[in-house]
């Protein structure tokens, strides 16, 4: 697995245009980074440099924001993000055991990605469907009322 930065001409153009549009906006930096992450899926060093140049801020400010907020990724993510909710309602109903099972099954700690870049594990805070606690998500799919034994069959669905 290499982290070499590859982009399409289209992505490059999309970012350039977005940065151009943001020049007149008050406090544009975070917005720019959010757009960039939407385009690339993460914030590669090269993209951080381009944002810093375009908005005329020091690179360390971009990096400082990227590391402050949980949602910015400095490394590419897997094809599927597996999120296990560790909000209070889910925790009280046993999501701690669910995430243990996922960790064991994928061999990952939260924040890590499998070597084949298929799964990224995230410990999420409340996603707001406390009625279904405990909850895990795979990509956009939500699975509720879980027991640890459900984990294997759920992950097996994503075998492409």
């Amino acid at each position, binding site marked *: 697995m290499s982290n070499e930065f590859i982009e399409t001409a289209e992505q490059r153009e999309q970012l350039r245009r977005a940065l151009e549009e943001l020049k007149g906006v008050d*406090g544009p930096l975070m917005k720019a980074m959010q757009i960039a992450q939407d385009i690339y899926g993460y914030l590669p060093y090269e993209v951080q440099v381009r944002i810093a140049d375009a908005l005329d801020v020091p690179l360390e400010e971009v990096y400082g924001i990227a590391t402050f*907020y949980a949602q910015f990724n400095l490394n590419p993510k897997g094809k599927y993000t597996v999120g296990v909710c560790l909000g*209070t*309602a889910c*925790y009280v109903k046993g999501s701690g055991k669910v995430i243990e099972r996922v960790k064991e099954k994928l061999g990952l700690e939260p924040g890590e990605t499998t070597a084949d870049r298929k799964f990224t594990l995230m410990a999420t805070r409340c996603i707001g469907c*406390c009625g279904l*606690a405990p909850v895990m998500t795979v990509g956009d799919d*939500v699975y509720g009322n879980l027991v640890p034994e459900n984990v294997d069959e759920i992950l097996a669905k994503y075998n492409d």
Partner: protein
Amino acid sequence: MIERAHILVCGGTGCTSGNSKAIFEEFKKQVKAVNLENEVKIIMTGCFGLCAKGPIVVIYPEGAFYQHVKPEYVKEIVEEHIVKGRIVDKYVHRETDESGKSKSIEDSAFYKSQKRIVLRHCGVIDPENIDEYLAFDGYKAYEKVVTTMTPEEVCDLVTASGLRGRGGGGFPTGVKWASTLKAPGDIKYVVCNADEGDPGAFMDRSLLEGDPHAVLEAMMINGYAVGAHQGYIYVRAEYPIAVHRLQVAINQAREYGILGKNAMGLGHDFDIDIRLGAGAFVCGEATALIHSIEGKRGEPTQKPPHLADHGLFGRPTVLNNVETYGNITQIILNGPEWFRSMGTEKSPGTKVFALGGKITNTGLVEIPMGTTLRTIIEDIGGGIPNGRKFKAAQTGGPSGGCIPASLIDTPIDYDNLIKIGSMMGSGGLIVMDDTTCMVDIAKFFLEFTVDESCGKCTPCRIGNKRLYEILEKITEGKGTMEDIDKLEELCYYIKSNSLCGLGQTAPNPVLSTLKYFRDEYIAHVKDKKCPAGVCKALLNYVIDPSKCVGCGLCKRGCPAGAISGELKQPHVIDTSKCIKCGACIAACRKNAIEKK
């Protein structure tokens, strides 16, 4: 044209997770199949509140409340209910009274004790259609203040209503508005705090999803009252449905000339933009939130200066929570006396709670302030499932504390909760039963705060980490009695020395569990036991010889080879080899293995 039936499909996050979108599409398809698409209106609404029964569909005029709906039920519901007018009873949520007669949904225990002021439109209107909001007196309150009141009068009216900030602190809203109005400067800002970070709270999200225009209108009123022309909504990126509906609402309001220059032709300019959070709990703190909107790291700064003097981009700023805004239009239209007629003297109005954890009816409830915890848990919540015992309720999330069973008759309002060592917080209410370990819960919240501390000030960054480590030591059975004293001392130190609200309240979960469940801490330390059976290191798996039939399933299932015994004789677990994985419990068909 007037439709003969309305099908309301819940489009809240809970029901959407249960695939209510597919149900909505299926209803459209099936209604079309019977050629009634011009006579039946199908809409996706905001949250109905009773998430435990989701996905929910309500069909009017009967008001039939269908629960746990699946796409495959839809054909039958359309053919029976819509075509023939016969409610499909087997899918309907019903409660019966003593005589066995079924009650209407409004009279059911879950809805009866509620008073839906803030949530009045949730589950009633289509949030993505501004016309429906307009039909329910939408933007009338804004028209009223701009045409008949001065900004001072608006601030006075809100102050007179006694409305307090629903984000948790409970600061009087009108006072906040008035001080921003008085602050000198031509450019001022209105900000809505929709960074609902408390894990286990989702009322702000449900309001944004179910009634976004009510929040926009309240911000416009706020703008007029303080002399601002620009508003920002700072919303969590984790709430994609809420963000989408807000954007739709803003676009529609701009199209209608409601937002923008010379709003509604009434002479006041006001526009609103959305700013997305990026996953930092500390950004719920006022100064941190402001920095985040400015595009910086969301680190808090010392107050004063207060936001009213020096806020967003250095300008006077007024910041209110989503639910606070949810009350504004009703207060303007109905008057402060009406608002004061609900709730308690010092906490008028209602409060929305997200009811979760070990409770039958999980979901969203809105109750008058002063309602007792007992009413919430036993009546509205339907009690504790599985015959377990109520142990405590946790309010205020990582900043709050526990209310033990002995205080179940406490009327819930801002001041009572502070008195018993918790706080209102944004409104998460997590119910715990006797299988919840209070030391483990304190540790859970500390893990959260350690993770979310921004690291700017030392008491919070290092102090909370140390608190967490001591709790970890106790749950692993390595704690001493001195540790408990140290824990308490450190809590008070962190509370009095941290820079912002996050650090100042972070020790609350520890202090309140120590206050009400000290014996549980002592059991972990002295007896090396976890009474609730949660802390893994303190449990031993034991086979009850009177129940064991000697089938050997547990022995085969044990990955550590810790179980021995002859066939048809009671087996035993060697605790020195046992890794406490629980495989034996899962394998046993006789319920003979216990954690002690």
